[in-house]
């Protein structure tokens, strides 16, 4: 069973990676399997959640759970024109809950917390701390100025939004590099599994298939 698992893993991973060579049937099969399994998993997990959170307590006599269950029907009733108005109640409830949570969390964490974090003293006991504090101060100011569009910064003042733009570019660069890092980490994990388990047997088969395809295409062109 371990061998079968490993081979399914190996062929699946290599079929997805084969897109780097070119679009092919193996890739499409693997893609469809992946989407299908993901949908099935989501369906099972969704039902398990409803059963665990609402249905079981309801059957045990906790009648309050009938309310979210009835409200959840609104999502399905949207499909029928006659019952669509019920859907609005569900949506109103979800939007209201989302807004309440956003007010509680987003304002305090992303606005107030960040403002407090940016308005501390520049002074620091260590030279690196001092440098960081100055950088935060200059960075915040210049980046904010970059987004002032009411009046064009001319002359010596034009330097400030330029610094802001450079700092935004640095941040975007860091985000891009981190994205690359994350994707490479996933790649390393899959490659480690491919090379250190029975999944390795899938590699020569995949290479053979690619070699045959390369030869076949060359013969066609000549």
């Amino acid at each position, binding site marked *: 069973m371990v061998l079968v698992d490993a081979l399914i893993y190996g062929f699946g991973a290599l079929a997805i990676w084969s897109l*780097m*060579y070119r679009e092919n049937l193996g890739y499409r099969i693997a893609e469809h399997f992946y989407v299908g399994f993901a949908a099935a998993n989501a369906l099972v*997990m969704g039902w398990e*959640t409803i059963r665990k*959170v609402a249905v079981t307590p309801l059957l045990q006599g906790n009648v309050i759970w009938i309310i979210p269950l009835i409200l959840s029907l609104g999502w399905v009733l949207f499909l029928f024109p006659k019952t669509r108005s019920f859907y609005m109640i569900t949506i109103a409830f979800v939007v209201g*809950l*989302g807004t309440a*949570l956003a007010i*509680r*969390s*987003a304002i*305090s*964490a*992303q606005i*107030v*917390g*960040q403002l*407090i*974090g*940016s308005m501390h003293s520049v002074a620091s006991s260590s030279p690196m701390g001092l440098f*960081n504090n100055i950088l*935060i101060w200059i960075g915040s100011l210049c980046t904010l100025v970059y987004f002032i569009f009411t009046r064009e910064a001319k002359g010596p003042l034009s330097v400030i939004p330029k610094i802001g733009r450079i700092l935004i570019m640095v*941040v975007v660069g*860091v*985000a891009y590099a*981190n*994205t*690359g*890092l*994350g*994707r*490479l*980490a*996933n*790649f*390393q*994990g*899959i*490659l*480690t*599994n491919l*090379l*250190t*388990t029975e999944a390795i047997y899938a590699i020569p088969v995949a290479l053979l298939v690619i070699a045959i395809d390369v030869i076949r295409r060359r013969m066609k062109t000549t």
Partner: protein
Amino acid sequence: MGFIEKLDKLPSQYLWVILLCVSSIAILRPIGLPVVPSSLTRDGYNFIEDLPPDSVVVLDWSATSGYGPELETQCVAVFRHLLSRPLKVIIVSFASEGPLLYDMALEGSKLSGVAVKPEEDYGKIYGEDYVFLGYIPGNEVAFVAFAEDSWMTEKDEYGKPLEELPIMQYCKTVEDWSLAVTLRGSFFEEMIGLWNSAYGLPIIMGGPGVSCPRLFPFYAAGQLVSIIVSVVGSSHYETLIGEPGLGCQLMDGLSLAQLLIVASIIVGNIAGYYKRRGGK
């Protein structure tokens, strides 16, 4: 100029093949490049080290298999550290795959590394020193509900009533928690807002590489104690606790692959520069 033109027309597939070769060599013949923990990770480690005995730490095991070893290695490294300290560890997951990945960590897998054995390796007893409450659905709603009532699940992941677990006497609400370690792929800002800003709870946060730049401002503002960034953060954490695992193992290949990409960017830019100059 001939070389530059050739370089410009080189199919991208060649780069993938080189990347595959470099990474494969590093996996099959590890070089053992040094791992130097960053202050970003060290702050979290030090915070846990300084916690008084019997402090309650909530470990949010919200790893998902889609992120591969990025989050799972973080969970394992932090779990090992928490087990090595005299703390009360409440494990919970707000991701549906969390329980599956927690079990994989206990059994050992290619995604989590060597099996974590709390009783054998750390002398910790389930229900007294650590507990796993399982998956709680609902994200933001669940964050608040669990903070307000840590007994909301009524049973642990294995169906045992919480009254029968002595560790739960230490943990009723967020007021009892000393720290939350949350390792996840989404809902970062919501978690910070609801657990840190609303309750003032110190948070160590870990995430995949793609998401971590969003967290740096929160760390700089003191809203996060520490950030564990991708597999790099895992390797740093493993080094700090003196238990090198899968994170450190993946670092050789990752470092060489990064070097290759940096070299490709430099070569590509030089080629682009010469091409433009030649065009003029």
